[in-house]
């Protein structure tokens, strides 16, 4: 038993913004071991400059953004290669955004529609000024040479 026991003092302090009420800086960050799980082949496809969608093995409904099971009937889907050309279904230019993307503003988001595919694909368009983008505009997929295994490995340019 040591009645004179002491915790060691440290040089660390707190970042203080205000005294009444007391407002201090609190830092928090985390690294995940994130698995793409059953969607992994899509990201592997990006490295091979392919866009992979999902087609229902029973009802044939075809998704531009992959999913392992069909939203319409619940049956398993199979991988299907999407065309690399499509059309702008809708678009917006973001002048503001979440912290992670602020440095990239302004950037233009599009939903791409493909012939014969039932759903859409979210991506970015480059090579067109914001006021040049139109609904129905033909676009073509391009891929980063060095794959990051993120959905931004693919983007679209005007055709």
């Amino acid at each position, binding site marked *: 038993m040591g009645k004179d026991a002491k915790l060691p003092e440290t040089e660390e302090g707190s970042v203080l913004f205000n005294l009444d009420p007391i407002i201090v800086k609190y830092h928090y960050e985390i690294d995940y071991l994130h698995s793409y799980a059953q969607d992994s082949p899509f990201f592997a496809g990006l490295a091979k400059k392919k866009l992979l969608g999902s087609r229902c093995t029973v009802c044939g409904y075809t998704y531009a953004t992959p999913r392992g099971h069909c939203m319409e009937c619940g049956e398993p889907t199979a991988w299907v290669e999407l065309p690399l050309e499509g059309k702008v279904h809708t678009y*917006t230019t973001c*002048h503001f955004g*979440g912290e992670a*993307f602020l440095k990239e503003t302004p950037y233009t988001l*599009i939903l791409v529609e493909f012939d014969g595919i039932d759903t859409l694909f*979210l991506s*970015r368009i480059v090579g067109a000024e914001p006021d040049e983008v139109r609904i129905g505009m033909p676009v073509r997929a391009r891929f980063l040479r060095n794959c990051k295994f993120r959905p931004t490995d693919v983007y679209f340019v005007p055709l």
Partner: protein
Amino acid sequence: MRPVYMISGGITKFAKAHPEKDFRLMVKEAFDYALADLPGLTRELIDGSVCSYFSDHFTRQLKAGAMVQDYLGLCPKPSRRIEGGGATGGLCFQAAWEAVASGRMEVCLSMGFETMSRVNTWKGNEFIALASDTNFDYPVGGFYTGYYAMMVRRHMHEFGTTVEQMAKVAVKNHRNALHNPYAQSPGELSIEDVRSSPMVATPLTILDCCQMSDGAAVAVLASEEVAQRLSSRPVRITGVGCGTDAMRMADRPRGEVILLPHESAEEYRDLTYPGVHSFRGGRMAAKLAYGMAGITDPARELDFVELHDAYTSSEIQTYEDLGLCRYGEGGSFADAGAPFLPHITYGLSFSGDDRWRRVPVNPSGGLLACGHPVGATGLMQAVFAFWQLQGAIGKHLGNDTLQIRDAGRGLIHSHAGTGTYITVSVLERSE
């Protein structure tokens, strides 16, 4: 299921930041207001609670609901958390309804809060965007205003909706809020003000968007026996409905319109639905709530609506989902002045189109002007609707400008994601 009534409600002032109060104290203030408003309602009479808050990231605290429960002195009674993005508050209200309707509780407290000021706005945008698919949507530049901008761009393409029609919604809701002391950002705006404010995501400017807020709200729900014993003016909840849609809006199907009783398939023969221009989950929620409440023509049978106007565009889209007008007519409905209060001067000229009965929408000021502390928002709507139906707006707001004369039936609508969870509840004055 047995009848359920709302017997009291309370709300804090919504503000950009309340650093002097944590979430427990904000809920406590709203709770004490609700208790004080109904003599005879005591803490002892409350059988349990449901607690709504959206993001653990904002709170920097997991299981925050348990801390509210103990702060309010409700331990060891039952409680649980309800979470569903922007619809968290509406889902919480319906969870309390379920607790009473099922007979599990005689009196259930629904309580909600959010403390969004604890991070910077851009970090808050990031937290909110994490409520979109984090594999496929968020990394592309995930930003909710961007998602809504793409949806309304398509609405404009399909139906000819204009940015000026959207701006009128901002003018309406900010001007209504001038008479609501609980509101965060009341204001006298013009269409020009809205259009010339900073662009966030084309075509939505910052005045087309709601702000982040700190705030709390509570609604106390009770059985008929308790409601009649304690209250001379209980408000009956006559319909509840909830709908959903795919998390990724890219996955939205293109099929047939879910019809309300006053509509026919013929009139939507050429419309692909819902696409990204309409909220199928909102239509489903409305259909279920109307079915339970016995409503067959909502525009004729509702006296007011408090709906989830996170964006001016989504208010217009929601007019259509709720059947206040037909799909495609939302912009014209606003142009005609149908959702405006009759006795307030807005500085706008209306089209004179008389196809629609006037149904005031967001007389409180809605999310655009009241603010959107997510977990509290759906309950805020319940509280304002409750006061409207009690004829008590003057008592609670300090002036009765926003009181709708003889309001007998109102609707509240809570909405998450890009339309992923949506609730509709119908409240009625009981004679």
